[in-house]
């Protein structure tokens, strides 16, 4: 297994006046054999980061490294991706067997019979009977399709698997199956994985490390328990409060001006710290904290880092 590193990666869409920086100088490491959960709301750039990693979106700046070396162009792809919507990620005209077989690197398994065996092995890996290889996607349920998509990703013998919201299009009763499978596969194969979702509870269940993304920047990164037990960035605290299910919300503790603040427009990101217009410990509540408006905070190099000027005080409201 390998370590995937994003070094100062920037991705832009559009040009001229409509240009938008979807991912802004992101540093992120997926350690070898670990699952890194990447959370953030829609528009935070998490899917763009994934697409950049697998080469579907060009990178405008920075480097993406695998074990310290740039990703190879062409040939075997060491990164594979599983998509959100299992209804569009499988070719409706192809049997699932040939969809999976297509992803097996050429030359890795010579001979038609060996390829068939390999497909059967992969299907077995994702708990599907081998005789399903002849089915078309239309004959499968959403959960089964998502497992086929996982099998296809594994067929490429990837060093790192990127899973982009793979449970959010599924019914609740089926999400569990897919999450269990992800955990089992991770245990069995020691896969390195970048697991993208908007649901902190899901991320908590599968991840070793958690990275929180807001408007194109990573605002917090650290070991899963540490981030969840002691969120340093106020945005993480907010996500956690939203994810805490059951019982009425403790939203009252947050001033109304903060609670009703609008999510920022990614085309016109705020200056300085991008979270400052919604931040419960920022200039909205503490008018003297102008530094948030002027200077973008950087995370320091510690294992659990948060990009916030007032890290220590940020933990207080979340703990209260």
């Amino acid at each position, binding site marked *: 297994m390998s370590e995937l590193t994003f070094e100062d990666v920037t991705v832009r869409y559009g040009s001229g006046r409509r240009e938008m920086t979807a991912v802004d100088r992101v540093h992120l490491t997926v350690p070898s054999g670990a699952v890194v959960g990447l959370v953030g*709301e*829609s528009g935070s750039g998490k899917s763009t980061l994934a697409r950049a990693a697998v*080469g*579907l979106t060009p990178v405008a700046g920075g480097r993406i490294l695998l074990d310290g070396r740039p990703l190879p162009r062409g040939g*075997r*792809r060491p*990164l*594979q*991706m599983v*998509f*959100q*919507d299992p*209804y*569009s*990620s499988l*070719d*409706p*005209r*192809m049997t699932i067997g040939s969809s999976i077989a*297509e*992803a097996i690197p050429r030359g890795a398994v010579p001979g038609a019979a060996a390829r068939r065996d390999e497909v059967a092995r992969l299907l077995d890996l994702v*708990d599907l*009977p081998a005789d399903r290889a002849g089915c078309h*996607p239309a004959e499968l349920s*959403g959960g*089964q399709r998502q*497992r086929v*998509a996982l099998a*296809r990703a594994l*067929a*490429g013998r990837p060093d790192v698997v990127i899973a982009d919201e793979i449970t*959010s*299009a*599924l*019914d*609740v*009763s089926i*999400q*569990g*199956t897919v*999450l*269990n499978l992800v*955990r089992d596969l991770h245990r069995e194969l020691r896969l390195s994985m970048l697991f993208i979702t*908007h*649901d*902190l*509870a*899901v991320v*908590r*269940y599968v991840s070793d490390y958690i990275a929180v993304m807001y408007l194109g920047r990573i605002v917090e990164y650290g070991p899963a328990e540490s981030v969840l037990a002691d969120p340093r960035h106020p945005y993480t605290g*907010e996500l*956690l409060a*939203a*994810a805490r*299910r*059951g019982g*009425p*919300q403790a*939203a009252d503790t947050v001033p109304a001006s903060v609670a*009703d603040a609008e999510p920022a427009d990614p085309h016109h990101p705020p200056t300085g710290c991008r979270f400052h217009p919604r931040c419960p410990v920022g200039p909205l509540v503490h008018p003297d904290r102008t530094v948030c408006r002027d200077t973008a905070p950087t995370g320091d190099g510690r294992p659990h880092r948060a990009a916030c000027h007032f890290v220590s005080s940020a933990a207080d409201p979340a703990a209260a």
Partner: protein
Amino acid sequence: MTSRARWAGVLRTPVGAAAAVLLGAVLLLAVLAPLLWGGRADEVDTAHILAPASAEHWAGTDNLGRDIFFRVLVATRTSVRLALLATAVGVAVGLLLGTLPLLLGPRLGRLVTAAVNIAVAFPGLLLALSFAVIFGAGASGAVPAIGLAIAPAFARLTQTLAASVAGRDFVAAARIAGVGRVRVLLRHVLPNIAEPLLVNATMAAGGSLLAFAGLSFLGLGVQAPDYDWGRLLGEGLNGIYLNPAAALVPGVAVVLAGLAFNLVGEAAAKAVGPRTATAGGRKRATDDARPTPTPTPTPTTAVPVRPQQSAQADALLIVEDLKVSFGPVTPVRGVGFTLGRGEAVGIVGESGSGKSLTALAVAQLIERPGRIEARRLELLGDDLLRTPPRARPRLLGTSLAMVFQDPMTSFNPVQRVGRQLAEVAEQHLGHRRGPALARAVDRLRAVRIPGAARRARQFPHEFSGGMRQRAMIGMGLMGEPKLIIADEPTTALDVTVQRQVLALLADVRAADDVAVLLISHDLGVVEQVCDRVLVMYAGRIVEDLPVARLRDGARHPYTRALLGAVPDLATDRDQPLVVIPGRPADPAAPTPGCAFAPRCPLADDHCKRADPALIEDGSGGRVACWHAEQRPEPAPAAATEGEGR
């Protein structure tokens, strides 16, 4: 429906059958006519030059005394062959140009696209004429001329279709897997766009038949001694006053053959059309079978509430034995519940459980062909089922507000938000324009939209998702609703925004004593807002219990499984999640017993035979399960195989 069944279905329609017969006849004639009548068509009879139509020569003879009728029959082969040839050239060039952008990548592809766009702007026949002049008169010149004239339109169609398929995730997946561009094109793109292309090629064949006849008629197409319909038409036209049949017969032949191709194309388009639009159609978890777009009922308070003397005096909404059916399928099968004033009740369930349809039925928003039946369906003591349809909008408008999942589609995109809210007051409260707008601003302020007066002048697209949803709730508050039905109001929103909208719903409810019926697939959302939860499965309520008892007092195995299937922040990370084996129930294939039995760990033979009724459990809840008393040991998580096997 398989594609074979669909084609068979098309053949059974009058147009489909006529088209198939006609085209079959034309093709048969093209093959057989020269063999059978080739001799007679070329037989020179100097004794009967330019004879009019007669019993012997049905369409008369030409200037060498040859029988025109037989010449028309024999010319079928040449005409059809050349038309098909030209179409083949056009389709081949079009396909090549259309798929080049995919093969060349974005930068060069844009050039090709631009070139095609320019070519499309030229009228086809004009292109064909100028090409025919360039290539020289004669069939060998006319074929590429017409082919090239067809090509741009075909290229454009191919480009559009290919681009839409190329944007789908499975193509991205193939590219990530290292599949080359040519292989992606051949294996993934072409098979998925083949059907509409074939349909269009058929139509193009009809068009090129006409175009060829035109060129030959002008003398640019087939040259003597060969002949096709266009030539025969041209020759016949010279003597049209002496022998009209000589021009009419080839003309009719052109029309019939052209019709044959076009009708077949039309019929095929019908067979292909619906599916290409939704090929591999997206299906979202929250996308319950919902009828056509539904209008939003607008709430007001024109009709005062009539006090009702009954046992359920404080019941706001009474639903008994509600059924919603679409033809033979009944997705809601006997739902009953009551909703008290100011009470918040959540309905949870998976897609297809009938939760959204139940809400829409209460709001009388089920449209044809859907049918609502119920023993009782009363809102504020008024019987919704027996209210004449004309009075319904007023009745519902008085007391009901509705909030949908996607606030973008619930607003009119070309009208300012404030205006849309004000309209409610004008329509139902009889307010004039000024006061109505003032109230709209006031209501926007009530749902905590910052800068309400400025925002009221903006269009829906200038609002963020969460803000639109708040404005939607604000629209519901233009009157004084007694009930807000919210159908997955936060599913399309981010978690932090979701919290704001739910808090707002709770505030509105507390401030005005409004009852809330909240539809969601997310138990967490329901827990935040509601007092009571109705759990639906396969069109029935399987459990009804207070929210406080949900976590540890749920008695139906489905409710318990739902709770365990979704991780929360307290889930044990070392244990696998609970999994509900099997597939969600299919409303089209109901089982005689309990609908959950095939997926239930407690099910026995009795469950498979008899459907349990929803029974009061004596402590404020209801449950429909034969084994409600039984508590299984913490669900064996190994039961994960079901779905796959």
